[in-house]
């Protein structure tokens, strides 16, 4: 059923997972908060029309402990640039969600020639005191699923230990994903990306879950105004912060239609 390939590259000396599926022009995807501990239906949807390439980011599932040596924002951006290059995504269209969307936008800003079209699902990176994002790291454990997805079951299933997986290492890997996000975005989520948006020349699609409980939907406007390239904003009805998991078909269809 899920006939995807798994490759491993080395980023700063850490083994890094690259998933690949489908045919046609390349499209990269950088996962959101929590990463991709397992293959998800959204990826199948994108792979229907494109060669989908999904590199793991440092510290996120498939990214080993690569986050542990990244101390500055520049360290992070160089690691992401390196990962994309090794995944064969230089020059390709790029999509990202949440924390991954923020890094995709940064790469498009700093190295505009290496990114084709850009699709961003509720990116991190901004902080408005009057309308702050929800703090994902100060939550009771049982609150997280409902903050990440409109349907909390989707998050729970994605994060549940699969049959046969190491029952000690799996939960540690999920904490590591939250730690990696914290390492980039602690404490406010504010990387001052706003200052770099004008450098993004790519045509950009902004997608936001109608029920996003993490990133205020008004932030879409800040991105749309700031980005130099042409932007389109779409709201995904019935979706939460990780809209691609709540509504895989709709989100994939929006992205594929935009990328052309």
């Amino acid at each position: 059923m899920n006939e995807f390939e798994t490759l491993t590259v080395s980023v700063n000396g850490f083994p890094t997972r690259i998933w690949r599926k489908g045919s046609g022009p390349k499209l990269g995807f950088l996962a959101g908060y929590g990463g991709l501990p397992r293959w998800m239906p959204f990826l199948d949807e994108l792979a229907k029309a494109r060669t989908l390439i999904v590199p793991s980011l440092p510290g996120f599932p498939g990214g080993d402990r690569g986050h542990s040596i990244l101390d500055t924002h520049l360290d992070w951006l160089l690691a992401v640039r390196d990962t994309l290059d090794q995944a064969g995504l230089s020059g390709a269209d790029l999509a990202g969600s949440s924390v991954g969307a923020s890094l995709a936008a940064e790469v498009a800003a700093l190295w505009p020639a290496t990114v084709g079209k850009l699709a961003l699902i509720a990116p991190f990176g901004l902080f408005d005191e009057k309308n702050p994002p929800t703090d994902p790291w100060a939550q009771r454990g049982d609150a997280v699923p409902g903050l990440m997805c409109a349907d909390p079951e989707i998050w729970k299933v994605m994060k549940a230990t699969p049959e046969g997986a190491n029952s000690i290492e799996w939960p540690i890997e999920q904490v590591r994903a939250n730690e990696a996000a914290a390492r980039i975005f602690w404490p406010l989520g504010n990387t001052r990306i706003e200052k770099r948006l004008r450098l993004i020349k790519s045509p950009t699609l902004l997608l936001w879950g109608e029920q996003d409980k993490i990133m205020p939907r008004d932030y879409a406007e800040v991105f749309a105004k700031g980005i130099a390239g042409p932007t389109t904003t779409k709201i995904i009805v019935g979706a939460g912060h990780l809209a691609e998991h709540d509504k895989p078909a709709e989100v994939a269809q929006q992205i594929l239609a935009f990328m052309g």
Partner: protein
Amino acid sequence: MKLMWFHLMPYTELPEDFRDANPSVWVDIHSSLFDPKRAHLMYNDFMDELEYAAEVGFDAICVNEHHSNGYGLMPSPNLIASSLARRTSDTAICVMGNSLALYNPPTRVAEEFAMIDCISGGRLIAGFPVGTPMDTCYAYGTNPSQLRQRYMEAHDLVIRAWTERDTFAFNGRFNQQRYVNIWPRPVQNPHPPIWVPGGGSVETWRWCAEMNYVYCYLSYYGYKAGRATMDGFWAEMDRLGKDRNPYQAGFLQFVGVAESRQQAFDLYGEAAEYFYGRCLHVDPKWATPPGYTSEGSQRAGIESQVKKAADSAVRGKSTGERFAAVARGMNAIVANGYVIIGSPDEVAEQLREVATQLNVGHLMLLLQYGNMSKELTRYNTKLFAEQVMPKLKDVHASWTDHWWPKPMHASQRAEIPDFMPRLGAE
């Protein structure tokens, strides 16, 4: 053995319905609950209590650091310690301690501790805690993923600042300082003894063993719960081929002494229930910033739960998680061993057992807790000093304490004029 008198400086007037009406005693505790004029009296009472403990013969008086915390009013323990340095003469001053990663640059810790060591004539014990998640990650905004790396680097910087004779450049991952050259320098040579309070991670045990630092387990759950942690520390020391010198360990214990066990139960019940009920009421959302607990400790914690090991309630658990499982009624508080109560003989007997079973040479005693009044604190302290302390002096007598301050000789030390409060009539 050494008997040390520890103050947390809790705000003593949290309302009775605090637990129900407020989400947390820490991080987002509401400012409306804080009355600065009442705090004026509390601080002065607390400092009187510390000075009194020194006067009646405790080996050390101890203070610690917390932020945005309703049970710990010392964001800067160094301020209190410097005042204590002037109002005491021979007692060790234990600052337990400064959360190294929170100081920018961490050179500040080297400087302030050197000041206290100079003012006190070499009586300082330098505590280096990582700090709780609430203090470090939430109240102070430190990145949990970098906290331990920053702590280790700050430690190296402080040690170099104390020991290198010439101005040097510090080229760290997180701290760069072109000219490090602290004035003043510590009296104690090469530097004050270093004590490390830790939560029970293998990494911390190993580090204390290798660096020859005192490992302190400062839990609020008494000797029964502390046993597994201290056993773990000594097992690691054995594994590394180190001496089982009890003075390389410290342990915190709540105590209430009275004429009889029943009287102690009645006298200290309210204060203990105030502490365990109101002071440890922490919103679980502040418990686990990702990265704060090392992966090694997470692994040990999960394994210990799988095995239902004796330490499964604490291994790999953060401060907040431990608080959530705490008992709050006096019967359970005493039964669980959180607070040791009884007549002087009974308390001495129990503490002797704690010191021997846990192999601990430094007992840090909480004789004030919760909303305990100044009078009751004084009574507890006096009775302990007069009737418990003499019964414990022989414990661990065959060992030498290599981790105790080495002050200047009394004849070399400054004469501190007696403090003479002016009488109202003058």
